């Protein structure tokens, strides 16, 4: 027996890869992400980025106009002009990502050629790379995979033994993980993406890679091509997953398991304590995860095994069975894992199953809340510091809070009513 793998196609309700710029640009303050696309792309990123931008942001869109499409203007020349204008305004930028979009892919605008040409022109003052975040090829977090994959050819070579953490982490979480690896006995730990885009980590046959995020398929393949060993392990969400993840690295560095246990076991038992109040709320509750962030499988594993939740359906935009093997193995037999989406049919299943909590995108959350179903935004999970043993309590809290809140206000806001009430609500 194993999980029940299902597939569905139809209308989808997910972000495209451009959305990952929202956290990538914060991680690398000396990088700029220039989307080559349409007004829709610009509007998408500013809407997903919390609606408004407070200062001049480190991302923008070169909006294609009719002149570019009709061939009246040479799109490559135009792109050079826009890139020059941008770099003149932002002299502190060291890495420029040219990001492909749906329209630029459809008109086959060659961003690789543009990046090469700009690199020649800028002579190392700014490094220019390109990748696609288009919605016809990528889903949400896959954009980060593209951005990191674009950096791999630039990584310096090393023959030194070292651990490389791949995937954006909150700075504080990264510091903590590096500290813990040090206590275990792994002293050489670097990260991709780095905090400064120019401080790229080195890679080579002595490099062991741990993926911090489950959506980095292409990046992992390119790192293997550079001679690195990419470990497969559960992802570092929850105490159990994070422990196994760190253990995988320790094993690869041939560290005595007793040493690992002496460092991690106290942390795990502390995390169990931190989980207790949340487990009290979550235990036995039924959860439905809609596909979006690609974190759904590891989250489901954590919520089921460490918080006692019951999994109704675990959606995922796409499934890389090899990379997810360890996660799939930890899910209960018969769990419905749905790859792809037909959003209408999926919402029918949500309504029919009346879950206690649904993990979904921002477009769907309030309509489900209005139907009486508690929700959690999936995008919050890619912004929050949730990785590692020490964060297990915080991660659980993200799921217990909506349920706790409902309990707090339910009685006062939904008093029992014996008289028929036929008027439409004021917010409808």
């Amino acid at each position, binding site marked *: 027996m194993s999980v029940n793998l299902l597939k569905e196609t139809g209308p989808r309700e997910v*972000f495209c890869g451009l959305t990952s710029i929202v956290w990538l640009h914060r991680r690398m303050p000396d990088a700029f992400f220039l989307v080559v696309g349409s007004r*829709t792309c610009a509007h998408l990123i500013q809407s997903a980025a919390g609606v408004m931008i407070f200062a001049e942001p480190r991302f923008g869109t070169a909006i294609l106009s009719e002149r570019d499409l009709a061939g009246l203007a040479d799109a490559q020349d135009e792109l050079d002009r826009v890139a020059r204008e941008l770099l003149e305004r932002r002299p502190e930028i060291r890495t420029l990502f040219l990001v492909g979009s749906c329209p630029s892919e*459809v008109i086959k605008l060659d961003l690789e050629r543009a990046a090469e040409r700009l690199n020649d022109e800028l002579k190392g003052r700014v490094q220019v790379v390109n990748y696609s975040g288009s919605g016809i090829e990528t889903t949400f977090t896959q954009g980060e995979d593209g951005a990191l994959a674009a950096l791999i050819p630039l990584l310096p070579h090393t023959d030194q033994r070292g651990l490389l953490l791949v995937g954006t982490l909150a700075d504080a979480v990264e510091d903590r993980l590096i500290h813990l690896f040090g206590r275990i006995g792994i002293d050489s730990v670097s990260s991709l993406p780095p905090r400064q885009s120019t401080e790229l980590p080195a890679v080579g046959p002595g490099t062991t890679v741990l993926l911090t995020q489950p959506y980095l398929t292409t990046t992992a393949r390119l790192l293997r091509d550079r001679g690195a060993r990419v470990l497969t392990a559960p992802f570092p969400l929850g105490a159990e997953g994070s422990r196994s993840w760190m253990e995988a690295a320790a094993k690869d560095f041939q560290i005595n398991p007793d040493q690992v246990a002496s460092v991690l076991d106290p942390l795990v038992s502390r995390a169990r304590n931190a989980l207790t109040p949340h487990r009290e709320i979550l235990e036995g509750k039924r959860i439905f995860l809609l596909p979006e962030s690609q974190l759904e499988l590891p989250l489901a594993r954590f919520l089921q095994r460490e918080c006692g939740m019951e999994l109704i359906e675990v959606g995922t935009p796409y499934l890389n069975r090899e990379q997810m093997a360890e996660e799939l193995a930890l899910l209960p037999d018969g769990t419905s894992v749905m790859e792809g989406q037909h959003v209408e049919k999926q919402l029918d299943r949500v309504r029919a199953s009346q879950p206690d909590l649904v993990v979904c995108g921002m477009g769907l*959350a309030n309509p489900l809340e209005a139907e009486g179903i508690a929700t959690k935004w999936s995008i919050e999970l890619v912004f929050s510091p949730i990785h590692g043993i020490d964060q297990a309590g915080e991660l659980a809290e993200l799921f217990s809070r909506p349920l706790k809140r409902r309990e707090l206000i339910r009685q006062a806001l939904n008093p029992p009513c014996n008289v028929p009430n036929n008027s439409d609500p004021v917010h409808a």
Partner: protein
Amino acid sequence: MQLTLWTYEGPPHVGAMRIAASMKGVHYVLHAPQGDTYADLLFTMIERRDQRPPVTYTTFQARDLGGDTAELVKRHVREAVERFQPDALLVGESCTAELIQDQPGALAAGMGLNLPIVNLELPAYSKKENWGAAETLYQLVRSLLKEQAPAELLHDPKAWQKEGRRPRVNLLGPSLLGFRCRDDVLEVQRLLSIHGIDVGVIAPLGATVADVHRLPQADLNVCLYPEIAESTCAWLERSFGIPFTSTVPIGIGATHDFLVEVHNLLGMTPPSPQEGIRRSRLPWYSESVDSTYLTGKRVFIFGDGTHALAAARICREELGFEVVGLGTYSREMARPVRAAAKAMGIEALISDDYLAVEAAMAAAAPELVLGTQMERHSAKRLGVPCAVISTPMHVQDVPARNSPQMGWEGANVIFDSWVHPLMMGLEEHLIGMFRHDFEFVDGHQSHLGHSGGAGAETEPAASTIQGDLIWTADGEAELKKIPFFVRGKVRRNTETFAKSTGRTQIDSETLYDAKAHFSA
């Protein structure tokens, strides 16, 4: 290709979504890739709607492009019609689908479906959101009503008199993601009902397809938001002879003018010009002694065309402000905004580059900014108070309370929300008196007794260089005595004055000279 860091308006298909989502029984099939589904959150998050917008996205992927995307469109049209059973179907495409030229509208029309299908062609690479909304409303109304259009235009807006009924008007233009439309509609209905005028259809907000069919039964169309409804109103006038209003009732003067226009068009006796004084508190509040301190406040205005124009008039005529900047991102409204600015002796800023707007704001050295949420951020950086008067919509622009902009109550709301960010009269007076007390220097100090205030002042001022000008230590020290919230303005004014009088150095005397110069 244009470098865009932030945009005031979305693409035109978002405008079409606003129309579809505003109405009941209208569904929109949008040929678009998966990323475009982000637009749902504009409605469910920003406007806190309790239902998804009625939109089916075809979400085609790269692998579909080699195959039959036309079949994909038809499948989604069929499924959407079956599942949602709409009374009318809008079919269109977003920017990417426009490039692959499947012509989804024509495909849907050829499917033999038994419902009205409106083919939307919204050029994504040249047009924007408000245009898309206006075009969608126009195409929808036109395709539902064109069969009904009479051969001869016999419409008489005074027919209600002969027919022995109350006059009846439609309210056109209010939509989701429009600034305070929800509350304006209630307020305008109230305003009209006071004068014995009935409201027939409100569209698109809350309208059904049957309501659209009833549009020609009105005596008059009220065009509440020209950005959205003007093309529709003009078509209804051309095809049915129904006249429409051109005054937007925001502010005391404009509300009165609006009532006069409506009464004249309907053949009624216009109401008393005193009505606003009786029904709104703005006139008295503006006349009261505390408001003396509002006199000549320098205000910078930027927003959509309708709200920017209304704000300029209110500021100048009803609050006694000085308008030092006026602009809009609505290119469609550039002409009237330019004219209004010219009448005030300034040049209008027509731009959709928020950094250009911020630069203009800084140059105008305003004491109050009326703008969009973006200008609120820019004003915050400049240390200038700001009130929001226009879309793009932010979750804070959809308050729980009733908060119209139009009509008499709208004028009350405007008085409160524009004046409160300013220092109130007596308060400003007291701060002027006590400005040398350390509590008023460098930010309001807490009663909890943090250091700062006097502590922050112990560091002696040093001379500084600003471009070609040198501020002496004595000049900087004098400047520090001025309350922090006007210090930037005084610094700029003094520098302008110093340059205009050919000085290269600014000391305390220069400050006093400049002060005398500017108060003269």
